[in-house]
């Protein structure tokens, strides 16, 4: 029986952590290129409704995920045009994305409230999935959970070992130098923003097609913002992102678990735990100003306009 509880405990944490990890991985790449996109929450919501509507209408959850990624890219390109081509303030443009995303998801989702869509397929490895504990945890998960790990490893490899990753980091740390070397700062940033949009969209699809069985308007409930905080927490390092996402998945699960257990703390206050935790973590990580300045992409949030 203990093994049963341990298995369900770990499974719950994985399932609560994955959307954070997916969205934060995308934002990490965007920020590494020197762009701060605060619209993660909005892109997630748009991905969630695009994925849900597509999966519901076509009957295919996989098509839903693709549609979510596509919708995330399209909406993130609005942000890219505003901040990169029209040099708008990135903070304001990100907020606009979030406000628009809330409205857009509510508008399209109005007809879907309380309806279920096909859920994401599981990928069970033969034999391996039958091993106690490790089987269900490692070898019998839905495809986006595998994807979240694969993409994280790929991102880490991309940033550290590839030439393209080096250029991306150069653009984020010194766009003038990168421009002088002949790289197109604009194109690279457009690409990084679109990747962030796709990942946020997929994170949204995970929520609407797996995590929450029915469509509801406030599906993201601040997860996009927590993902943003996680990028700061990780100090822009991929594997720390993983640690952060699982820490928060753990806190989310803990708050659900405590409510189920009937702990004598009112349940709304327990629900506040992840948000409270985010503040604590931000405080702990930001205290060391020098470390933050050392790790943060030097051009984060700054506009770039090539004169020639």
């Amino acid at each position, binding site marked *: 029986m203990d093994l049963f509880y341990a298995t369900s405990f770990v499974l719950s944490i994985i399932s609560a952590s994955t959307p954070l990890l997916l969205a934060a991985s995308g934002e990490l790449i965007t920020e590494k290129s020197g762009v701060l996109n*605060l619209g993660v929450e*909005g892109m997630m919501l748009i991905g969630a409704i695009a994925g849900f509507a597509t999966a519901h209408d076509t009957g295919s959850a996989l098509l839903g995920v693709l549609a979510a990624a596509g919708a995330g890219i399209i909406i993130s390109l*609005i942000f890219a*045009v*505003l901040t990169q081509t*029209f*040099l*708008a*303030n990135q*903070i*304001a*443009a990100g*907020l*606009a*994305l*979030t*406000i*628009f*995303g*809330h*409205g*857009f998801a*509510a*508008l399209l989702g*109005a007809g879907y409230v309380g309806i279920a869509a096909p859920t994401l397929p599981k990928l069970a490895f033969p034999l391996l999935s039958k091993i106690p504990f490790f089987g269900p945890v490692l070898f019998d998960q839905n495809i986006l959970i595998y994807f979240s790990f694969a993409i994280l490893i790929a991102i880490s490899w991309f940033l550290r070992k590839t030439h393209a990753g080096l250029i991306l980091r150069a653009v984020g740390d010194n766009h003038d130098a990168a421009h002088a070397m002949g790289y197109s700062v604009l194109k690279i940033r457009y690409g990084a923003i679109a990747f962030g949009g796709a990942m946020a969209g997929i994170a949204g699809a995970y929520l609407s097609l797996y995590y929450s069985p029915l469509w509801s308007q406030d599906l993201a*409930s*601040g997860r996009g*913002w927590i993902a*943003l*905080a996680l990028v*700061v927490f990780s100090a822009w390092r991929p594997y720390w992102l993983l640690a952060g996402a699982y820490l928060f998945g753990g806190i989310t699960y803990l708050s659900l678990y405590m409510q189920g257990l009937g702990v004598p703390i*009112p349940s*709304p*206050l327990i*629900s*506040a735990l992840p*948000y*409270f935790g*985010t*503040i604590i973590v*931000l*405080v702990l990580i*930001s*205290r060391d*100003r020098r470390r*933050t300045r050392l790790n943060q992409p030097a051009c984060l949030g700054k506009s770039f*306009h090539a*004169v020639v």
Partner: protein
Amino acid sequence: MFRLEPRGERSAFWTYGSPVLAVALTILTMGIIFAMMGAPPVTAIETFLISPITSVAGLSALAVRAAPLIMIGVGLAFCYRANVWNIGGDGQFTLGAIAGGGLALFFPNEAFWWFYPLVLVTGILGGMAWAAIVAELKLRFNANEILTSLMLVYIAQLVLVWLVTGPWRDPHGFGFPQSAMFSAEATTPMIISGTSIHLGCLLAPLLAIALWQVMARSVLGFQLRVVGQAPRAARYAGFSNTRLTWIALLVSGGLSGLAGIIEVTGPVGQLTTSITPGYGFTAVIVAFLGRLHPLGVIFAGLLLALSYLGGDAAQINLNLPNAITGIFQGVLLFYLLGADILILYRLKRVRPAAPVMKAS
């Protein structure tokens, strides 16, 4: 092809022209969205933007909706001028409502003339306290104010839910998640009989004008602008960034808190789980659309208040979801941010070299 060319100075024309252009483009886009949703565009826009304000009742509803937006927006404009990105207006609004509303609930029989002002002051202090957390975390621990103020929005909302479903729930409320109604002594007074226009509708523009005077004429206002536009110059001049950050957050938190307590003691009448339709976030758009200027904020507040009324009108008359309000607000901010490029840059037409020869 077009190319952006720096003007070298701010264009006075486009500083005020860009919001007008943005509103025009937004209305055009809304027409297209309405058409895509199967509603006749011209009628739909008329329903959304004009029909809500064709009656006295409509105009007073507009004033009631605009009051909190202007109060929060003018505080945010003040804050953003100092480069402090408080986006937690909704949380400070909620805490103001909780603090002031709590006082009103604990003393339901007070009949002194000063009780209502005391409730308002408590609301202001509640909003300030919530913003003070953000200031302290930013200054002492370097924690990003965007994220902390936003997390505090969620926490404030959950605290409110706890209070109205638990300790403060109305025992005679049939189990609904709401507090008892506030007493007559703790209710926002009406200022024009026969309408829903209350004290807040008068206070909001007055506060905006007061803050405009502070920003335009006082040393504090000058320091604020310098810190926002040229942080280095401000440091050389010896302006205290710490002090200004505190003032910016306390002013915007206090104004949001005031908006919150006026809203619950006025139009809402009690504490419930949904006291704000996202006023704190809409006020961000209000601040930008108003050019971070208190007088601009008044106009912007009225326009965005109209978008709430328009959403309701579109729902009732055209059977469209009232989420159209959020779309309007988001699209408006998109266009505004895009159009703002014209303030610092001009569009220059770049012609291919060859065809120029044929000029006659």
